[in-house]
């Protein structure tokens, strides 16, 4: 089993809240993503069993939603907005700066599996651009100095966790 008892409990709570349990598919995918960090067919199978819904319906829904990575990613998923409002405030250069800083290209993961960098569509942080999201957290009004600080903080946190 991949899903923990707690995740399964979350899914069941969600199922009870909707007039139709199929409505809890997206919340279930979200709960699984929060636990695992990505989604894959083995996870769909477990969700299908918990929800008593055919596997294909879970897989089909999951394949539509781009917010859930479908393969393993780094511990921190850096998602930089590359749409118009952020681009007018340097998003292209923000991406280039992070690529250079981490030594990876868009879509890649650092060798220590700490960071994955991707470009995403508008995050709804357009008036505080450029904007990015790392896991659940938004970072806005980004500058080089701010990026340095954020990455350093995450690395420090990682070192502490490993100790």
């Amino acid at each position, binding site marked *: 089993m991949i899903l923990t008892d707690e995740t399964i409990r979350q899914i069941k709570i969600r199922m009870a*809240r*909707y*007039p*139709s349990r*199929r*409505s*809890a*598919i*997206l*919340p279930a*995918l*979200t709960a699984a993503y929060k636990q695992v960090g990505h989604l894959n067919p083995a996870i769909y199978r477990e969700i299908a069993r918990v929800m008593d*819904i055919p596997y294909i*319906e879970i897989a*089909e*829904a999951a*394949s*539509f*939603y*781009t*917010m*859930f990575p479908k393969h393993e990613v780094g511990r921190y998923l850096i998602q930089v907005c*590359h*749409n*118009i*409002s952020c*681009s*007018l*405030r*340097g*998003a*292209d*250069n*923000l991406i280039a*700066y992070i690529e250079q800083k981490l030594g990876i290209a868009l879509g890649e993961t650092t060798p220590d599996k700490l960071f994955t960098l991707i470009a*995403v*569509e*508008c*995050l*709804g*942080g*357009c*008036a*505080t*651009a*450029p904007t990015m*999201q790392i896991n*659940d*957290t*938004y970072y806005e009004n*980004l*500058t*080089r100095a701010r990026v340095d600080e954020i990455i350093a903080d995450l690395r420090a946190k990682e070192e502490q966790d490993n100790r």
Partner: protein
Amino acid sequence: MEKVLFTHVDQPEQHRIETYVKNGGYQALPKVLRDYKPDEVIDIVRKSGLRGRGGAGFSAGMKWSFVPRDTPKPKYLCCNADESEPGTCKDRVLMERDPHLVVEGIIIAAYAIQAHQAFIYVRGEFVYPAFRMEQAVAEAYAKGYLGRNILDSGYDLDLVVHTGGGAYICGEETALLSSLEGDRSLSRIRPPFPAVEGLYGCPTVVNNVETLANVPYIINRGPDWFRSHGTEKSPGTKIFSLSGNVKRPGNYEVDLGVPLSYVINDLGGGVPEGHTLKAIIPGGASTPLLLPHQIDTPLDFESMAQAGSMLGSGAIIVIDDGACMVWTAMKLIDFFQHESCGKCTPCREGTAWLKQLINRIEGGEGRPGDIDLILDVCGNIMGRTICPLGDAAVMPTESIIKLFRNEFEYHIDNKTCLVKTSYPLA
């Protein structure tokens, strides 16, 4: 200028129910449940002239009145908090800083259409706004504003905060319903309209966060007060998300009908020093562009349409002379192509084709005839799709080509930009 929706957003504890109540919150709801029949609430909102803030500007009261009254089916209310159109970032502020205002608006709207189940569809990336909404909903249940027999009125309502999975199309009302039913978020042909056949085949009203946040104020202060803001046909205030090349980007609430220049220059400080204004996208990424000489156009639904664009979601994107317009068109079409749900051919294939053509020109590989080909593809998408996303991709694209055709021609002839885009990272 008097603020309405943003009156309390800067108070640190406004998201907690005690502070919301102290500042006059949850006064409209008891009044509604005690004094008004559902139809009377609809009537008040219709008289106020409140129009949808999600983009289309449809009368809220009118939409509610389309819900059949004598049906045995359950009815649903969905608050649309998908907020994903580039430029738009206002609903997030309301959810984070005054979530009870949104909850109170939802309860009153649900009562008006006699729904006993409501949803808030929050885009998946909005973890924090969704958390604030969850917290507000839990507080509202604990105080008896939600659940069984609300404030002893005999009215029941449950409210679920539902989070999405990262798709702009989930904001389109019929796709939102597909998504909420557990399907891929595909749009549906209208009619039937959701008010008649929506969620689970039942009558459903979908309203934007900001639309619903206006409702408690309209109940408390009356339709005439509401109409004292804004213009005759576009009453009330509106939150404008100002982004792009301005000194002070931000979310600003002003009366509908103020000149665009008031928001861009007076509030936003204008374009940065040493630059000049080149173009304005006035209503979110899906709206046609305006030129600098149109900067005094009043910000209301009618004036924006007259000027050849749309008020849309109120997302004003300011573009200065640092932008190549082929690059701008590319940034826009890349978004729409990525977000097409793929259900209908003109949009699925057309946006992919547009993306390819515009990227090819921007990349210095444009061919003679490409501009006309783009316009031809646009013509084959416009008005031929299931939902408005196809049109949304076409409108800014056609408009940029019309206004800045010379930059496209230069690009094709010289294999490089007329204006080299340069927006450094601070």
